[in-house]
């Protein structure tokens, strides 16, 4: 009995120590956001200080911060809604009207995720330049939608597969067409699944950095690109950088925490349950 208590205590201490060390950089960034620039670079690092919102005020006072944030919201929500709109019918037909080709189609969709972005950077850049899509929100929305489409189809497919076929058949008996069947039966039944699929897509789009850094400059740049601009000499302003970063990660961190279980399904294409 005694040894099991000691063991439990050891596990608790070890696990918490690791959790705190891993989380420390994030904690430190959040803390730095409430310091003055002077305290932010103080040596030894100051743990106790008079918290101030001046970092936040300065970031918010820059008219463009809000613009970058709005770009992030527009791009991640826009690409997610578009992806869901295209993926729901596809996943529906794969789950409920499977043909011998369905399995192949699903695997092929997964394979499109394997195309490394750098491999197609040049053509996409030139296509965007010629179409006038460089530094445009719509261009970024399309890229993110295509980037996430395979994952969205896969995740929806795994959720739709769990719906008993009888329910949809009963609806069809009552004279529901495909559209009604999807809108009034399937969507309400799988709303939690659709929501977590959408959230994963929002998270991935919000954090994406390769395309946003290479295809946007100023007017369509989302927060990832804005934060990257702090790597210039402006990066010396740690309190401001931390305040801006905290605001940029907060919504996604919370969404990520809320959907962690369902995310595993999407991130592993259902191979780990």
């Amino acid at each position: 009995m005694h040894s099991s208590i000691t063991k439990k205590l050891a596990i608790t201490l070890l696990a918490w120590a690791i959790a705190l060390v891993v989380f420390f950089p994030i904690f430190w960034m959040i803390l730095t956001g409430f310091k003055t620039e002077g305290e932010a670079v103080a040596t030894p690092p100051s743990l106790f200080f008079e918290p101030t919102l001046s970092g936040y005020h300065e970031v918010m006072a820059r008219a463009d911060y809000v613009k970058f944030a709005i770009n992030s919201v527009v791009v991640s929500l826009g690409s997610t809604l578009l992806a869901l709109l295209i993926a729901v019918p596809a996943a529906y037909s794969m789950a409920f009207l499977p043909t011998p080709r369905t399995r192949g189609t699903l695997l092929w969709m997964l394979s499109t995720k394997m195309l490394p972005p750098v491999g197609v950077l040049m053509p996409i850049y030139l296509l965007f330049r010629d179409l006038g899509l460089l530094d445009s929100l719509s261009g970024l929305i399309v890229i993110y939608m295509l980037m996430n489409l395979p994952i969205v189809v896969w995740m929806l497919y795994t959720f739709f597969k769990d719906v008993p076929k009888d329910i949809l058949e009963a609806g069809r008996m009552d004279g529901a067409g495909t559209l009604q069947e999807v809108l009034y039966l399937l969507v309400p039944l799988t709303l939690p699944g659709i929501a977590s699929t959408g959230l994963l897509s929002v998270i991935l789009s919000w954090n994406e950095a390769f395309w946003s850094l290479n295809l946007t400059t100023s007017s369509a740049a989302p927060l990832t690109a804005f934060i990257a601009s702090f790597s210039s000499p402006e990066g010396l302003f740690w309190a401001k950088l931390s305040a801006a970063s905290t605001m940029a990660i907060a919504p996604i961190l919370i969404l990520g925490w809320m959907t962690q279980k369902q995310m595993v399904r999407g991130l592993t294409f259902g191979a780990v349950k």
Partner: protein
Amino acid sequence: MRSFLLQAPAVSLLLLWMLVPLCMTLWFSFQRYNLLNPMISGFAGVDNYTYLLTDPALWTAMGNTLLLVGWVLAITVVGGTLLAVLFQQEFFGRGIARLLVIAPFFIMPTVSALIWKNMMMHPVNGVLAWLFNLFGFQAVDWFSSLPLTSIIIIVSWEWLPFALLILLTAIQSLDDDQVEAARMDGAGPIAIFWFITLPHLKRAISVVIMIEMIFLLTIFAEIFVTTSGGPGLASTNLAYLIYIRALLDFDVGGASAGGVIAIVLANIVAIFLIRTVARHLET
């Protein structure tokens, strides 16, 4: 027919997204094409490839790519497995501790890179420099003396939570009775880990390795924000080299040849991943 129509938008968009850039990359890779100098043009044959393959920069970048992928995989898979076993135990505040430890995975890469670059690894004002001094060691100027190591640390920090998240989910499906039976037969914790837990996690580990590889082969933002590939080429990976050729030198032909090489590498990994997933896909 109905099934075909419902899938048509998704399938045709993905087909376009895959084929058009792929064909263009292949085409460009055989062209003399520089955006800064329109006079250079025409069919290049395999010149872009021979130029690239004889350029020492490519091999440095390939070596760095392999080191980066190899080390991050080793750290995250071994660390993730051990942490999954630890965080599976019941302990006080487990839910909150789990949330804290998976948090880095949700942080945007440009933010992670900047926190580490400025607040952790800064040679004078960073937390690590302070800790090193506190224990009487010389502070390290991470990004100039250990550029690739610094990137490996940052990327491992971002991906360890991913491995943990997946492996923790997998470990939860482990049969308790089996563990109990083994314990009854006198198996110690290490034997249980080695002969029961690890085999159970085999599939999840292989999935983690393959998915991480797809992302790690093309790590970009972390390098872009911290070292810009330097000093020299010390932290340039294949992705960053292609970026330099493409958008700094505007050498479309050379960048495309690099792109083709990246695509070939990624596909070698992809074949294994798709096989693994396919085996577990019941339609």
